[in-house]
């Protein structure tokens, strides 16, 4: 009896649909032409409005695919897909959740300079009030201030807050050089013991 069932199964299997996926074109509408499993890690995409240019993705990138460079008051954050291992470390590390792995996988390109091989984001940089050197993005400065206020000791909170507002708009070098003139020098914390 069991052998008869086996034979019947074999015969019926001939009438099932072919299992070949018809990628790259859907020949028949009812047949699937590609299979995209849930959680597939494809090309990473960066939201330009959310990105603050903080270099968190640059530090965790295992294949050195991410690079950040400043040029002409613009900060370019780049992922070179030829070196990317699609490990989603940058997605985990991003404090603003700007990077998301999509499920796009069609990235065949004819040469290295092809724009499809790079994920580029350009951000405007703030210029120093004093010397004119571009140093950070507006959002990065704001987020640094917010995070500082979250974690700081309540005793020095007001002083640091007013100091930070005085220093806003100056590059790190000018902050150091004009600390005394702006009355933001750390000498005023000396009397605070145990902080």
């Amino acid at each position, binding site marked *: 009896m069991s052998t008869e069932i086996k034979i019947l199964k074999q015969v019926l299997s001939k009438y099932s649909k072919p299992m070949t*996926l018809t990628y*790259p074109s859907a020949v028949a509408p009812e047949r699937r032409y*590609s*299979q995209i499993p849930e959680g*597939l890690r494809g090309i990473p995409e960066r939201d330009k409005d959310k990105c603050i240019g903080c270099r968190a993705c640059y530090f965790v990138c295992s294949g050195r695919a991410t690079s950040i460079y400043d040029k002409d008051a613009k900060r370019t954050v780049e992922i070179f897909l030829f*070196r*990317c291992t699609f490990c989603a470390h940058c997605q985990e590390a991003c404090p603003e959740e700007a990077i998301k792995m999509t499920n796009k996988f069609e990235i*065949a390109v*004819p040469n290295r300079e092809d724009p499809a091989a790079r994920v580029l984001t350009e951000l405007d940089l703030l210029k120093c009030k004093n010397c004119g050197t571009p140093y950070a993005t507006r959002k990065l400065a704001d987020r640094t201030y917010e995070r500082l206020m979250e974690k700081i000791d309540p005793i020095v909170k007001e002083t640091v807050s007013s100091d930070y507002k005085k220093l806003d708009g100056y590059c790190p070098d000018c902050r150091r050089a004009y600390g005394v003139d702006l009355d933001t020098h750390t000498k005023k914390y000396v009397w605070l013991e145990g902080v």
Partner: protein
Amino acid sequence: MGIMDKARIYSPWLYHLHCGGCNGCDIETLAALAPRFDVERFGIQLVPSPRHADILLTTGCVPKQFIPMVKRVYEQVPEPKVVVAVGSCACGGSLFYDDAPENYAILGHPDLLIPVDVYVPGCAPKPEAIINGVVQGILKLAEKRAKK
């Protein structure tokens, strides 16, 4: 373009050159050749000798010991030929990409040795992505044949 060249566009033969990788891309390549994805729909056939091939499919970053073999296999493929680099290692060196100091064992991507026509990044790329790359390679092959 003669009748032979026209016919050969529909049957590009493929030689799979594995030069020092982790085997991930090779498994995906074999999946693309197997019935589930079945590249024989495009007339692509896996051949055991580079002398029969039109398309050279390379995977992995090239170790220094393998440099002469890569060059030799590339020269054995008859003209016109197309090289498809599959995987991030074969495209740009991936994790093995090293500037100074130079790595003692690994050269990097095969692009440093042989001209590559189509790059398929991914670690490892899906079989569909490999098919997409190989189909682009076939189109390039047709262009090269038309020029000849």
